[in-house]
């Protein structure tokens, strides 16, 4: 059975702690831009925590929303790529084939979620910081577009392990780096083709929504909206 990888992010659990942000940098060899390049908008964060202010002091609220590649079924980034570097895998992931990419940036323009990042310069790891690089993930050079992969290296490793043991993957036996570090368990990852997986169960919640659903991109990241509290009952 093919898998359909998906994620659920419960905004009622998310605390905005950003453990996911640093876990992603560590897992995926994301280069540090440094202050000068970051000031030019060239910092790369495959996952970021957006925040929305509502109201004015003192009746003010702040809402957090982690945003990463939504791994859309109808991804606007894919058809625009002149070199077929943006590619839809059989498991439904929006993959980026680095050695096809010519840095046209059409995909970044097309993506409504602004989760694609161009390498404006060759990333530097000042020695011995290079020793932290994850050997399972290729380092992207200048002119290459990069983005969240749902930690495809972890997906492949788990699939190969399961195959060698002649069994199916178990729900929750592996997770992308962001999900693994999430303390309040706001993020859940799994297979939507398995109706009993936790991610399938949560995606059916009545709080489940998709980001910019009206664009018809059919994202595979579901957001569970924040609950409200009314006299001890759930809103």
């Amino acid at each position, binding site marked *: 059975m093919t898998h359909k990888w998906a994620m659920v992010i*419960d905004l*009622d*659990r998310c*605390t*905005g*702690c*950003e*453990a996911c*942000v*640093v876990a992603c*940098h*560590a*897992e995926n060899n994301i280069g*540090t831009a*440094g*202050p*000068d390049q*970051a*000031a030019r*908008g060239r*910092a790369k*964060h495959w996952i*970021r*925590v*957006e*925040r929305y*202010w509502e*109201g*004015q*002091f*003192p009746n*003010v*609220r*702040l*809402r*957090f929303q982690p945003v990463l590649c939504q791994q859309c079924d109808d991804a606007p980034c894919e058809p625009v790529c002149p070199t077929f570097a943006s590619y839809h895998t059989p498991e439904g992931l929006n993959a980026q084939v680095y050695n096809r990419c010519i840095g046209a940036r059409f995909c970044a323009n097309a993506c409504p979620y602004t989760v694609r990042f161009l390498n404006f310069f060759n990333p530097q790891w*000042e*020695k*011995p*910081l*290079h*020793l*932290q*690089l*994850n*050997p399972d993930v290729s380092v992207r050079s200048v002119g290459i577009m990069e983005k969240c992969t749902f930690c495809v290296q972890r997906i492949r490793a788990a699939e190969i392990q399961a195959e060698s043991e002649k069994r199916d993957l178990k729900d929750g036996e592996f997770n992308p*780096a962001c999900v*693994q*570090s*999430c*303390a*309040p*368990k706001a993020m859940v990852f799994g297979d939507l083709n398995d109706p009993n997986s936790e991610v399938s169960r949560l995606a059916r919640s009545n709080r489940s929504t998709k980001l910019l659903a009206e664009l018809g991109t059919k994202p595979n990241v579901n957001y*569970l909206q924040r*609950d*409200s*509290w009314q*006299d*001890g009952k*759930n809103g």
Partner: protein
Amino acid sequence: MQRRNFLKISALSGAVSALQSCGSPEQQLIRFIPDEDLVPGIAVWKPSVCTLCSAGCGTLVRVMEGDAEVVRKGRTGLIKMGLAKKLEGNPEHPVNRGKLCARGHAALQVLYHPDRLANPLKRRGPRGSADFQVVSWEDALAELTSHLSELPSPGNVRSSDSSGVHRAVETGPAPLAFLTRPLRGQRRELIERFLKAFGAPPSIAYEPLEEAVLRQANLLSFGSAALPTFDLARADYLISFGADLLGTWNSPVAQSIGYGEMRQGRPGRRGKFVQVESRMSQTGANADEWIPCHPGREGVLALGMAHVIVSDKLRARDARPRPAALIAGWSEGLPDYVPESVAKQTGVSAETITRLAHEIAAAESSAVVIAGAPLAQTNGMFNALAVNALQALLESSRAEPPILSFTPQPPIGATVPASAATPASFSTLNSLAQAILNDQPHAPKVLFLYDVNPVFGAPASLQFREALAKVPYIVSFGSFIDETSAFADLILPDHAPLESWVDDVAESGTTQSVVSLAPPAVHPLHNTRAMPDVLLEVAQRLGGPVAAALPWNSYDAMLRAAYVPLRQHSSSTATQSEDDFWSKITAQGGWWSTPRAPRAEAVFAVPAHAPAKLAEPEFDGPAREFPFYFTPFPSQSFRDGSLAHLPWLQEMPDVITTAMWSSWVEINPKTAAQLHIATGDLVEITSQHGSVRAPAILSPGIAADVVAMPIGQGHEKFSRYASGRGANPLSILGPLTERETGALAWAATRVKLARIGDAERGKLIVFAGGMSRFPGEEERR
């Protein structure tokens, strides 16, 4: 030929051809024989312990084979060795249960930091210039030992041998001081034993945002001088008075796990969360209700709620007399705290106070917590005792187990019990600085520094920098040159935590007693030595009572002697051999007791302490000249500034402002409009003690009479990533202290605010909207 050997030879010949045009190829060509057998491409997970904050989370280190340039026996060369690639939470560890915070992930960059000290250093230039030269360990230890043996001390062989013990006793304590970050477990035990045997006073644990007020209040209210543990997963209602419990305070990973369950872990039952503070924190942003309260009035607000609960007979006021006895007027029903008068003092409406009191009293299980700025006032103790009394009142009629408990301590002996109340580190540091500055006879002649940076972290008004310059001999175990270790005469760089034996005893965050313990996850990269092993060796070189007090030849032998007796405390391990037990606890990352639900603290003895009367907060600086309350807050990335050298954390956008690599000042938009300040404008904050400059960020989540600034940036010297970046709000704080404990009242300074310039490129770097240009940039191009 094996593939491995082929690869080695080809790597070697490749290096030869590559290096022919480079300098000193003979240095580069050394290839050491690997001393462990790792399979290329296969990851091994090894346990370790996070040491970046005092939560003491257990980690797992992903170790894979790789090529590293290392120093062995004084020579630099390449070696295939196990390299740490990624940190994850240890799923078995009772505190963090497989999870890890953003800062914990970045501990990897401590290990691989390009500015980490690789060799022992001796001062060459003037004090504080950070001009050092490399020395050998032998020379460094010989120099240190000779300085120590010249000190008059009862535990010192030479002085007692030459002129007799009597002279040494008459001199009083040895003039040796040990300044460290707060430590637990055997590192602390080792230092205390060393100092005691040497005849020196106990070590001074310093951290800028210390918890002395809460510890003292908990000792009075609940009989335990520890930070509390909250089982939030079972809470239906939580009111936090300024506690950044989901961000930086206490045990944030454990608290965040509980918070997630409180919100959505129980179908159909969602706990409510209320945050009281004057500047919205990351934690406050998650609240269902965010309530701004005048700074220093949080205790009054808590007692206003207690008044409503008692007078509306929602709880019996005398059920838990111990915490209640600490509040003046409690037995009369708190007549001074009627909601209308509380509303005037706090700025929170009487209706809100009454409603919150009824809501929390109706909840089946609830918790109130206080930390951060409310405790860093001159009346911090009053605020803490008030909130503790409210907690006791709410829990008085509850079924056990309580939401609030104290982590049981493991049954191991210690020179200093972990639960003992410690004096406020600010006042201890202050007396140390005064003793040095005034040339008092007991002022230290030798000062040890371990993982502590008071030149950055203490207000300039304390004059610690000036005091350091007068200490005859300073030894640092620091891995980096920072503002404080720049004054050292000798630096003996410690291993990174992942290269060391690490141990810790959890103070909070779990209801089990926990010893975290792990062997080194990787071999050392540099010519460094573990601080405990250096102290043990120095003790042996000194001989006499110091050597007798520290008989172990290595730190792991000391750890084993301390922790193997835990075997007797569980029936499942009591029959194991010592070796089996030791292998088991070092392989799983520590020892923890079997889970047992805590019981409500049945402490009914009334403490011998005068009841706390309403205590008004005092502020440094007259309100007329300095109209704003200044609230420094621990940065989400750097906590108190000790993590500002890690590039991942510098580039992590602050979740409230999305600022990276920057300092900033949060200002209410109405205040900003009056002063014609826009986001990005350079502003100057001035207190009676100095001024700092940083770009402004207009934030709706801050009161009009408060300005706030993150702590952590503004380092003069702390690696290439943090030096000269941003401004340090701690430097302009007044020296006011909390009245009862002497802890620094870091939220009690008043400031004035002025716009001094337009936005400057590179001063405020934000991730959201980072592509938009700053005003004027177009013209300059």
